[in-house]
């Protein structure tokens, strides 16, 4: 699996998702481009409303009717945006799967654990015999630390951590190449969460699956991921290996975010950075760079022209005028209304 690490599994380029709302169109994902490699864990972090969940759903094409999606989305060489309904059904589950935040609302309360898992196999692999499917399920759940005696249980009979492991099982049972975990550990207590993180790492090592972890918790990404993409107001602010981004964040938003995250170590970060303002409402995003009203390093160009994601070397990309040139950057022209 290790030698496949740098092979591209997903190519996302200039992806846009627009919702039609009563307040007008909302561009929840705006010109987003990045790749997901085979066997990597990539963290997608951002605050509420930044578009991270929309992006996750867009990868599976699970967006509501009102959403319009443009750009390029290539999964293992195939154009996902061109899939018809049959191809999509086959694509979801078998090649990409999702682990959601709240297992209690994602699992059917009147369906046994075993039949949740069996159903997934029956729907997606009608050719698999039931006996073989049952065998596969037993091996899988034991691997995830659930005794096979618990398979006939209903979701309410399991503990929170076990239910979340069932969710992982559901995500893994069809052997997908990519698992999208959207706030999969958010409702869990820290010790249960820590164990689940260990489990996600083991799954990646054992099955070679790629995992996209969508979260608001940047500390969790430092603990778990190989690379991190920071999203702000529908755009990628910065992307790179966790070592690059955490050691040397380039985007002022990433810098501020990292300085405002509590650190439990007593000898580190005694004072939290207080970022001014709040994340913008996307029905009416700020002009130019969407972070400029909160940015401590704002320049005249920032409110007028939007920067692009720029390769700064070492696999790090940043979306900020500080690191790129523009004719107007040095000589701001201010037009006065005629």
């Amino acid at each position, binding site marked *: 699996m290790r030698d496949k690490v740098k092979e591209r599994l997903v190519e996302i380029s200039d992806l846009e998702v627009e919702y039609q709302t009563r307040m007008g169109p909302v561009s929840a994902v705006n010109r987003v481009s990045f790749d997901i490699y085979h066997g990597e864990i990539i963290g997608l972090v951002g605050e*509420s409303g930044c578009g991270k969940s929309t992006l996750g759903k867009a990868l599976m094409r699970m967006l509501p009717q009102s959403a319009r999606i443009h750009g390029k989305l290539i999964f293992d060489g195939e154009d996902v945006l061109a899939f018809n309904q049959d191809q999509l059904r086959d694509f979801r589950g078998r090649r990409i799967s999702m682990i959601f935040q709240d297992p209690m609302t994602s699992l059917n309360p009147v369906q046994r654990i075993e039949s949740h898992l069996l159903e997934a196999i029956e729907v997606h692999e009608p050719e698999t015999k039931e006996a073989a499917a049952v065998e596969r399920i037993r091996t899988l759940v034991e691997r995830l630390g659930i005794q096979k005696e618990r398979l006939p249980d209903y979701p309410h009979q399991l*503990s929170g951590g076990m239910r979340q492991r069932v969710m992982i099982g559901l995500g893994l049972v069809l052997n997908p190449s990519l698992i999208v975990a959207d706030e999969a550990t958010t409702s869990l207590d820290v010790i249960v969460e820590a164990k689940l993180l260990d489990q996600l790492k083991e799954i990646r090592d054992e099955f070679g699956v790629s995992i996209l972890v969508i979260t608001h918790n940047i500390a969790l990404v430092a603990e778990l991921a190989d690379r991190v993409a920071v999203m702000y107001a529908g755009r990628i602010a910065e992307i790179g290996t966790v070592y690059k981004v955490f050691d040397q964040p380039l985007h002022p938003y990433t810098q501020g975010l990292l300085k405002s995250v*509590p650190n439990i170590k007593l000898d580190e970060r005694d004072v939290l950075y207080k970022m001014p303002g709040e994340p913008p409402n996307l029905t009416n995003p700020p002009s130019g760079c969407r972070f400029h009203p909160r940015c401590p390093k704002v320049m005249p160009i920032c409110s007028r022209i939007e920067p692009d994601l720029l390769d700064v070397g070492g696999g790090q990309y940043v979306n900020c005028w500080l690191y790129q040139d523009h004719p107007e950057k040095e000589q701001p022209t201010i037009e006065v209304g005629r």
Partner: protein
Amino acid sequence: MNHEPTRPHSDGENLVEVRNLKKWFPVQSGILERIMAGRTDYVRAVDGVSFDLRRGEVLGLAGESGSGKTTIGRLVLRLEEPSDGKVTFDGIDLNKLSPEEMRKLRRRMQVIFQDPMASLNPRMSISEAIQHPLQIHFPEQAHNHREMVYEILDKVGLTPPQFFYDKYPHQISGGQRQRVVIARALVTRPDLILADEPIAMADVSVRALLLDLMIQLKHEFNLTYLFITHDLATAKYICDRIGVMYLGKIVELGELREVYAHTLHPYTQALLAAVPVPDPHERRTQLMPRGEIPNAINPPAGCRFHPRCPVARLDHCSREEPVLRELRPNHFVACHYAEDFL
């Protein structure tokens, strides 16, 4: 501005004293079931907890869900009746108060909950929400209410107050809503604030501002906080002391920096190690305790943590319940083998 110049104050160092507090919730089961079983089961949410809340301090209560931390908060405010034990507020035994006396005392103890959207009535404007406690506690000062609302809006950073006065909760941001909840709690000039996960819903970039506001207001209004949280990393930035709870009991209690630096209970050690650190060079290597927090209906005998504890000795820990004892100055721990960690 002091609304009540003659306020009885005892001179004690402690604003709140909690002694052997218990809250057992009966498990709702059918009448037939109860007759057949011949007994009622109880969830022992809080099972014998004692601590002091000193004037002007921030005491954190931390623990996982189901540890009883929220129930303790509700008992201290007497939003729940205790099954046993005693809460004293400023020298007054809450158990002995009539409903009317309790209602009056409530002016001095206010609460901030986690979800501001659930704490605010969507049909009440911000000024109405903040005036509501004034109407209850200071009806005779009705002519001043508008001014008092302006003043408190200003104090919590909702400026200019005129802009927010007639707004409704859905018209402002999440961080601003939590400021409204804080303003509503402070407008009666309380002594004690119960803050139950007050910033857990806020975005990361907004949390630091809210924490800072709470600390600043604490100094300005001479407040004492009981700060309930599951987030030990955030607790570091606001709490002076911390109590760690497990299954209805306090297992460790002391100055926060002392507890974090010289952790004496194996459960606290696991809890602290489990918190992810925002630095990929500092990834966790410790193993986590096996299993999950057990059911509070039938907690394990002896030390409640023993089935998951890495240092438990079965013959001892499963039989004898450890008591909270002072092992280092002002640092209490309930573990038979805490000396091993000195």
